């Protein structure tokens, strides 16, 4: 009894203070009006949402030049800063034009199509969670539940298979708001297999070029190497097609394009051998 009572009391006090605290906190912190610079944002939000700042610090936004700070997405004015920055248009300002594969693979996906058709009817004040938006925009998946580490679900080196699991867990959470777990698991595993097949094509081309560099000079092999660079883009297309669920990027911009690259590299090197003979 002696031990239990203080615990209960403690819980009681905590809840009372919490309940009283909410309005007080809100009153003291009613969204300040006026214009802010990112430094000022940080100072305040470091206290109020330390996790958010920590998240952002570990993201690519904080670690690549030019740094994408608070103001870059939320603007200088504090009013409606969150709701306006949730829209895809915020991201597209930096992440390519409409024809950039990153954007285009999304806009031609079913998610992207629904977003285009329905965005005017959404209430953008809703948090990025619980399927509050019928179609997920960029932020719904990449900043799910206001997570500010935007790059947690993205990987830079597509040839590296090891990073996959972490990425999968990160993005899976957002999918499950609408889709069945088994569907998502299969979809992800299928995507990884599809991407691995793409890597096989790139590795085959790369090793053929390396083998041929014993026989031929760099100048002679330059066109093959140029084609290999194209392969990287086409592999990225497969990846974007898988990640954004665009069949067009998985296929026409992806796998058959990789096939074309591979056979052209083989044809080119084969012709070099035939001339030399």
């Amino acid at each position, binding site marked *: 009894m002696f031990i239990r009572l203080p615990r209960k009391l403690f819980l009681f006090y905590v809840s009372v203070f919490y309940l009283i605290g909410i309005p007080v906190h809100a009153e003291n912190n009613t969204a300040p009006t006026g214009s802010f610079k990112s430094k000022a944002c940080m100072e305040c939000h470091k206290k109020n949402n330390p996790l958010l700042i920590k998240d952002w610090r570990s993201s690519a936004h904080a670690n690549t030049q030019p740094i994408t700070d608070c103001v870059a997405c939320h603007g200088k004015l504090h009013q409606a800063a969150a709701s306006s920055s949730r829209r895809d248009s915020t991201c597209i300002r930096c992440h390519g034009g409409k024809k950039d594969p990153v954007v285009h693979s999304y806009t*031609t996906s079913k998610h992207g199509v629904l977003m285009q058709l329905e965005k005017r009817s959404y209430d953008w004040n809703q948090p990025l969670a619980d399927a509050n938006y019928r179609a997920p925009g960029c932020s719904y998946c990449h900043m799910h539940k206001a997570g500010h580490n935007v790059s947690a679900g993205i990987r830079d080196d597509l040839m590296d298979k090891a990073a996959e699991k972490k990425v999968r867990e990160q993005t899976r959470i957002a999918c499950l708001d609408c889709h069945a777990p088994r569907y998502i698991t299969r979809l992800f595993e*299928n995507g990884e297999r599809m991407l691995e097949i793409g890597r096989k094509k790139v590795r085959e081309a790369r090793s053929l070029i390396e083998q041929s560099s014993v026989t031929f000079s760099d100048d002679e092999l330059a066109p093959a190497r140029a084609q290999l660079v194209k392969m990287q883009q086409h592999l990225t297309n497969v990846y974007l*097609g898988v990640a954004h669920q*665009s069949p067009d990027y998985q296929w026409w911009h992806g796998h058959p394009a990789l096939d074309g690259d591979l*056979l052209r590299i083989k044809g080119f090197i084969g*012709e070099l051998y035939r001339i030399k003979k």
Partner: protein
Amino acid sequence: MKEPTMKTKKVRYIWIPIIIALIAVPIGFFYVDWSKSGDGAGLYSRDWIPDAMFAYWNPDDFYQSVSTIKGEFNGEQCISCHQAVTPGIVKDWQASRHSKVEQKVYCNDCHGSNHEDLHMPTPKVCSSCHETQHQQFVDEKRYGFPSHALAMERALDSKHFVDKPKAEVTACLQCHSVATKCDSCHTRHKFSAAEARRPEACITCHSGPPHPDDETYFNSAHGQIYLAEGENWDWSKPLRKGNYKVPTCAYCHMNEGKHQVADKPIWKFGIKQVNPLSSGNKIKRKQWVKMCSDCHAADWSAQQLKAMDAERKRAWSKLYQAEAILKGLRADGFLYPSAKQRPAYPGDTKHSLIQRERIGFFEGQASAFYNVSPIERDYFEMWYFENLAAYRGSAHGDISFVNKSHKAMDKSLQKLKQHAKRLRAHGKVEVDETTLRNIWLKGEYTEFNRENN
């Protein structure tokens, strides 16, 4: 005395075909059954094993329910649980007409009530209420390829689909599943008719190099007006004369909401030349002109079709020139690598004896865009990407796209000529050179592809 022997002889001869038929017909049935009895589906089902993901794109053939949750549930019970598990689909359903009609259409009406034996709804399931639309949709099969209703067969029975690793060709099924599930256009679980009337509903599949229907439509005068004003139109109206300022994909191809897209196209997919003035196509032309006349003068509309005929003729004259170059190389033995040096064409090892380079539609080059020589691939791209882009441009009224694509075809033809000249200069192809054979037959993907389908 001679007559009766003749008669008995005749009677005896009749038995021969009867016996042959009695043996052959069951064997035929048995063979077809056997060929469809493999792990895969379709004509070559014994030659491949499906990827786990196929269950969702072709549920009739591959979906199996799991027994993680046991019991029978009614609609309200489904919703009370799924509100927490997958709130998105419940919100969708609540916004749908299914939840607003007097006799609500609940989850279990389409998925079944037994949680251990759920199914993914196919068009057949939808047809129990939407019978008219389903009949129109199935009616497409009469017109052959290309059609929505035959799209899954088209994919599964393609040789390159059978030949390639199944995780790779899962990409195909996402669009070809338009035959096996209605939510390709009416996305789940809202299943909105208004959504499917918008052009964007089509672009997830109708985009990209061989069918830039999205770009060519949006660039056209129709598309420009849609982009500027479409957001404010009332999309609950049927696709009928007077309801829309400009036509959208569905207005022309599914006029009056008829779920039949295959009955009007004259040039079909565009991968082979057709006679646009055949008796069948003359009927189709009248249908087009009648529809364009919702807004335009009939004469003017007929003129547009003629302009398209001329454009197609121009395109095919270029394609035939390219084909002639390739066939010349093949005849003279200059095609490098030849069919004997490179991996077999899809399906060839099992279904045909002769290894020969395939050039053009009628030799089956449509399934041969890999495992080929660069010059054949160049022609494939000219044929499949540039030619089809030009076709889409002229069909949808995007002149700049037509011009751009024809310029690209001219350039490709020039490139092809130069490449052919180079190949001829290299001399005849000898098959037995080990290095050359290794280049084509070895390698991580090539070997993986050979072993995995």
